[in-house]
Each structure stands twice: as structure tokens, then as C-alpha cells.
């Protein structure tokens, strides 16, 4: 993994030797590489998507947001990037990493998107997150220092579960979210949960390392999925049954639309 950045795609992603560091800041690791690989794999779609505002939550060293800015580069002019981290050293290191690559992102030292939620609601076209996802005792979550880079509490879901509703709020109608998850985070349950908010999902990269099995999931709003209303939620159905229901209602809706079209033609 370490001569990464010396191959051909190097000009499109951040170069490890230019990534700044600090003892209390998470260094780019397999999870960071998997997320950037997912973005590269989806790069053509991103270029077509032509995002206006892109955001990273938990930018750490800045490796990911710098890579995103480089891979969209001049082909999508006028994109603005915003990155946040609770760790003050991380936002500073990200500033240096961006500068070393000649790109810019607006940086904010904050908890997820605190302070931005009101005015930035519905404006983010692309959000990327490599959250602290390692299962740990609850009390390790959000402590100062490097532990907050990985400590995710029960099933590693504490911060993930805080980020998802905020992502839903910030994403525009055409917004996409790319997120790193671990098998122990129960990615399929995360997808079901997002489905209830009206999002479709797809695993872009799946990678097993010695220690962990990573999934990079992409979420996007699918207007064919009717978000569950409160009444639906109270009906005592299992989650898979609900998904089946939405699938069935989609089929129904599609056939209605079809017959509508044939009537008019």
C-alpha cells in the first residue's frame, strides 16, 4: 500500500508524501484508500453529476477531501469543498495537505456539521465519510486525541448513527453519500435504515484486510422509494417485509405509470 501515489492515477489523487501528519491525527490507512478507490471507481459518474458543494465529515489528514478535489479537478470547475473534524489538529493537518496539492477546501473545527445544519440543509451534492467505526466501550467515543478517530462504541455505530440523519438533512435532492463501514457495523441494516428515509444504496468497494472487512457504500435519494411515514412505522412488520412492501409498491407505481403513458399515446 505504501508506494501508492507513485502510479499513473497519482495526479488524480493525493500523494502520500505530500500528506501532512501529526501524532494525534489519523494517518491514511486501508479504510482511507478504500474510500478514495470507491470515489475513483465512481469518478465518471461524479464528473457527470457536476456537484456544486461537496463535504467531508471527519477529514483527518485531508487525504480523502484532497483526492476528491483533485479527481474532479478542472473537469468540474467551480466546485466548493467543505470539511469538518472535531480534532483541531486534524483540520490544521488537512489545511496543509490541501495546500501541498494546490487545492482548497473550507475547514471547520466542529462536531459533524454543527453550526452548518440550518443554512447548508439541502445543499450538499456529494458527502464523503470515513467515520470512527471500530466497536469499543461507549466511554471511549469522542474522547480527545487519536482514539476519537476510530472509537465507535457499541457495534461501532455510535457516530455513524449520529451522522446519517445529519447527512439526510444536508444532502440535496440529487445528493450522494459515500460512507465506509465495517462488517460489524451491520451495513445491510444501515442500508435498510437509509431506505426508510428514501435512499437507495450500492456497495462500491468491498475489501478484506487482515484485521477487517470494509464496505464502501454509496447512498442516493431514490424518488421511487416512498419514505416510511409514521403510520407505516407503527405497523408491526419486520424491516425486510417493509422493504418488500416498498419494492412491491414501486412495481405497482411503475405499471400505473406505464398504463398512463399508453393511454395518452
Amino acid at each position, binding site marked *: 500500500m505504501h508506494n501508492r501515489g507513485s502510479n499513473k492515477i497519482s495526479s488524480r489523487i493525493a500523494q502520500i508524501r505530500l500528506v501532512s501528519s501529526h501524532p494525534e491525527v489519523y494517518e491514511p490507512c486501508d479504510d482511507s484508500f478504500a474510500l478514495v478507490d470507491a470515489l475513483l471507481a465512481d469518478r465518471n459518474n461524479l464528473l457527470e453529476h457536476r456537484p456544486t458543494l461537496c463535504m467531508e465529515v471527519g477529514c483527518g489528514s485531508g487525504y480523502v477531501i484532497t483526492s476528491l478535489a483533485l479527481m474532479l479537478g478542472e473537469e468540474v470547475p467551480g466546485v466548493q469543498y467543505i470539511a469538518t473534524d472535531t480534532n483541531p489538529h486534524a483540520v*490544521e493537518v488537512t489545511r496543509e495537505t490541501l495546500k501541498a496539492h494546490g487545492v482548497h477546501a473550507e475547514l471547520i473545527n*466542529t462536531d459533524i456539521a454543527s453550526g452548518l445544519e*440550518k443554512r447548508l440543509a439541502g445543499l450538499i451534492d456529494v458527502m464523503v465519510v470515513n467515520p470512527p467505526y471500530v466497536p469499543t466501550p461507549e466511554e471511549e467515543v469522542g474522547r480527545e486525541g487519536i482514539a476519537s478517530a476510530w472509537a465507535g462504541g457499541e457495534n461501532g455505530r455510535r457516530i455513524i448513527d449520529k451522522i446519517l440523519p445529519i447527512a439526510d438533512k444536508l444532502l440535496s435532492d440529487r445528493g450522494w453519500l459515500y460512507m465506509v463501514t465495517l462488517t460489524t457495523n451491520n451495513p445491510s441494516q444501515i442500508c435498510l435504515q437509509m431506505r426508510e428515509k428514501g435512499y437507495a444504496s450500492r456497495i462500491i468497494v468491498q475489501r478484506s484486510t487482515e484485521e477487517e472487512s470494509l464496505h464502501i457504500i454509496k447512498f442516493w435519494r431514490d424518488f421511487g422509494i416512498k419514505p416510511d411515514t409514521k403510520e407505516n412505522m407503527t405497523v408491526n412488520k419486520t424491516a425486510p417485509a417493509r422493504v418488500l412492501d416498498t419494492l412491491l409498491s414501486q412495481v405497482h407505481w411503475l405499471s400505473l405509470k406505464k398504463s398512463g403513458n399508453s393511454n395518452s399515446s
Partner: protein
Amino acid sequence: MRLLTHNMLSSNIKGVTNGFPLLIEVEKVIEKPVDFNPDFLKNMFVKVDWKALVDASRSLGYAELPEETPESSVIDSDDFLRKFHHALLELHLEEGALVCPETERKFPVSKGIPNMLLHEDEV
């Protein structure tokens, strides 16, 4: 910190109802040239809070923006777009503070990075 970011930030202190816009205390302003992109500006024009941008740019010493919210037809004027571009993207608050309009709590801005982290009793 660009004024675009200032335009998107509100005071996040618990209980604050009128946290926008944050006032600006200036210690150091810098200017960095940015490629001019009319499409981006037209896109942002409808999303920006005009008064907040005008007041913020004045606190940073730039008084070229019209006080009144311009008619949407101005976005076809190159002269207007260039001023809007400069205020929104090229002016940076490098050192200083953002001040909550309701509580006067200060959020420091250092090396261009605002610190919006709250103390335990503010969350």
C-alpha cells in the same frame, strides 16, 4: 474562511433561536484569487443570504456590494458577478472571531479555520 462559509454558519449553542448571521471580529483579512465561474455564482446567488453577505464583506473592509438585495436580473451583469465573486470567495477571514448575535459567545477563527466546538454546558 471565505464569506461563503460565514453565510452558511449559525451559532449552534443550545437554546439560541436567532443564531444567524454571526458577527465578525476582524484581526486579519487576506485575499486569494479564485477562478471566476459564473455558473457557480448564479447557482449560489439564490442560496446566499444577501444582507449577511453585504454586512460581512463590509466588516472585512469591502464595500462594493449593493446594500439592497439586487433583482435577480443582475446576475447577467458581469460587473456585479465579479464583485459577488470577490466577496463570496476571495476574501478570507484569516484571524479573528465569529460572535453569536444572541449570546455574544465568541467562536475563534485561527489560520482561517473557525472553531465551532461547544463546551459541555452549551450542547
